[in-house]
């Protein structure tokens, strides 16, 4: 029967899609590792000398970062790079971020500060930072992140070597690992984000730069109109526009950046909701451009977004049908006898464990003691696939209902459990 076949195909898709994507990411990441990382025996603290050392401007948009911004600015001033300026953009913080930055101004001649009296959002902060910046290369860093001392050299290398490089994204590493959620995200950043970035780099285009640490060529940004202020994820948006205009985006795993992640479910949910909504928003805005033949290298990224969004709804439907089947009789094609699929479950479990092991092995080059997080990574399917799918289901209608031009402003994120830090 046709309905039976359609429903069966959807059930199969629900279980096989994450498995297949795991192997796509693993294959791409392993290829990237052997092609780009393994042959190069330099550690992150051993960058090659650059053919030229163009001056760079660091842009640090901050909103209520009083507890972190001092450390962030210090990590930038400590960069192993000859010529740079640091521009902090204080976006109407209600804590002591502004006064801390003003105090730092007195001591640090390479620091400049822009204050916004009203909350304008990260994208506007970056735009004004770009106007004020004296240099062609902009490195954008969140106000709670720490940049590794040698990261600037690794990032700049790509702009010096490649005229078509419009942006380079670094390698964010989770700093806060005290709680279960923190530990899970340490694993997630290796097994998912690191793996996906490597794989996407291999198949040509990447979905997004990491907004927390990304370097841009100003002329490329000018070409595409800088960051849009009405997109909930300005990093995904600018990545798509750069690549749709044929600017290359590179991933540089040696450019380490230490970030604070949410350590509460509420904080994590809000973050994932924003990420999911951001993906749908960019697709909604650029799908016509994406469909053009000249954008064909972006098709894989667009297809991955569409299929994963569709998958989120099908897995949601499977759970609903299974739950309904527990309390009422269901028509034959819609019966879900179990959500644990026999031998597919064995392969699902095995695939996840293989993916964890490979990702940790690849990333241990940058964090040798990473293996200890293997125990905690068992939560990854729950965190990634379940929260991701729930966030996608909720975010699609929000993204579709959102009016164009509606400004995205700052909401202070959850910074996790940590001892007090002063400037």
């Amino acid at each position, binding site marked *: 029967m046709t309905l039976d076949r359609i429903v069966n195909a959807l059930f199969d898709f629900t279980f096989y899609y994450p498995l*297949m994507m795991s*192997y*796509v990411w693993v*294959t*791409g990441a392993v290829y990237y590792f052997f*092609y780009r990382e393994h042959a190069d025996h330099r*550690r992150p603290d051993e960058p090659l000398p650059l053919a030229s050392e163009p001056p760079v401007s660091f842009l640090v948009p901050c909103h209520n970062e009083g507890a972190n911004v001092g450390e962030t600015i210090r990590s930038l001033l400590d960069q192993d790079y000859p010529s740079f300026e640091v521009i902090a953009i204080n976006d109407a913080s209600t804590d002591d971020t502004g006064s801390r930055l*003003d105090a730092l*101004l007195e001591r640090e001649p390479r*620091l*400049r*500060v*822009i*204050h*916004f009296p*009203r909350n*304008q959002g990260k994208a506007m902060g970056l735009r*004004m930072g770009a*106007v*004020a910046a004296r240099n*062609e290369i902009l490195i954008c860093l969140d106000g709670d992140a720490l940049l590794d001392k040698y990261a600037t050299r690794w990032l700049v290398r790509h702009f010096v070597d490649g*005229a*078509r490089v419009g942006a380079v994204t670094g390698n964010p*590493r*989770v*700093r806060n*690992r*005290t*709680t*279960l959620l*923190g*530990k899970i995200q340490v694993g997630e950043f290796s097994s998912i984000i690191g793996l996906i970035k490597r*794989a996407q780099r*291999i*198949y*040509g285009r990447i979905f997004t730069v990491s907004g927390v640490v990304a370097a841009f060529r100003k*002329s490329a940004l*000018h070409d595409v109109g800088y960051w849009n202020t009405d997109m909930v994820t300005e990093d995904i948006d600018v990545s798509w526009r750069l690549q749709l205009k044929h600017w290359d985006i590179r991933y540089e795993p040696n450019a*380490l950046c*230490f970030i604070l992640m949410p350590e509460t479910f509420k904080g994590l949910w809000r973050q994932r909701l924003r990420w999911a909504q951001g993906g749908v928003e960019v697709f909604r805005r650029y799908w016509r451009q994406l469909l053009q033949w000249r954008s064909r290298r972006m098709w894989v990224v667009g297809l991955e977004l569409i299929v994963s969004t569709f998958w989120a709804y099908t897995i949601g439907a499977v759970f609903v049908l299974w739950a309904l089947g527990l309390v009422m009789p269901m028509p034959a094609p819609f019966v879900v006898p179990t959500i*644990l699929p*026999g*031998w*597919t*479950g*064995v*392969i699902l*479990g095995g695939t*996840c464990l293989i993916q964890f092991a490979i990702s940790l092995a690849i990333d241990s080059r940058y*964090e*040798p*003691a990473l293996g200890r997080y293997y*125990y*905690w990574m*068992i*939560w990854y399917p*729950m965190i990634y696939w379940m929260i991701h799918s729930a966030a996608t289901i909720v975010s699609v209608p929000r993204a579709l209902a959102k009016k164009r031009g509606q400004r995205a402003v700052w909401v202070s994120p959850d910074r996790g*459990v*940590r*001892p007090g830090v002063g400037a």
Partner: protein
Amino acid sequence: MAAVDPKICIDAPDLLTAKERARDTLMTAGMWGAYLYLWVPLISLAAWLLGFQFAYDVMVRTGGARDLVHVLKMFGVSIALIFLVVTVWSYSNRARYRGNNRRHAGPAVPDESLAEYFGVEGCVLAALRTMRRVEIDFALDGRPQFFALGARPERAIAREERCADADEQQAV
């Protein structure tokens, strides 16, 4: 040698209570248990090899072994295909685009273009580049309005004054 300085990472178990630490560890152990449940067919296979009746039921009577062969075939073929497609795609991308720079390094963005794009006067742009402390507000239409300040607010230089100076210099 570690690339990551362990001092940068915040792993402070003492910030959690003993109860919270035990809860996290036990919940994770439970998750591993749930994972083992996924592997029931594999455990059944092992048990069958050991001659248990239940395993016989799962693997033979209800067709578990046939399912295993089917799944292994399907996954084997799928994974091989994925490997082949991703690898061929990667090689072709590398061959097609490596060292093939059709785009030439362009000039830096001219200040005039930048000022025009953001709707600011040239003198304001120059002030923005030199002042160490600047306050920016925005008009209702989203255009930035700049208020250049000194390193301390009391040494403020009004935008109009800055542009008037520039206009005067230009006139001279």
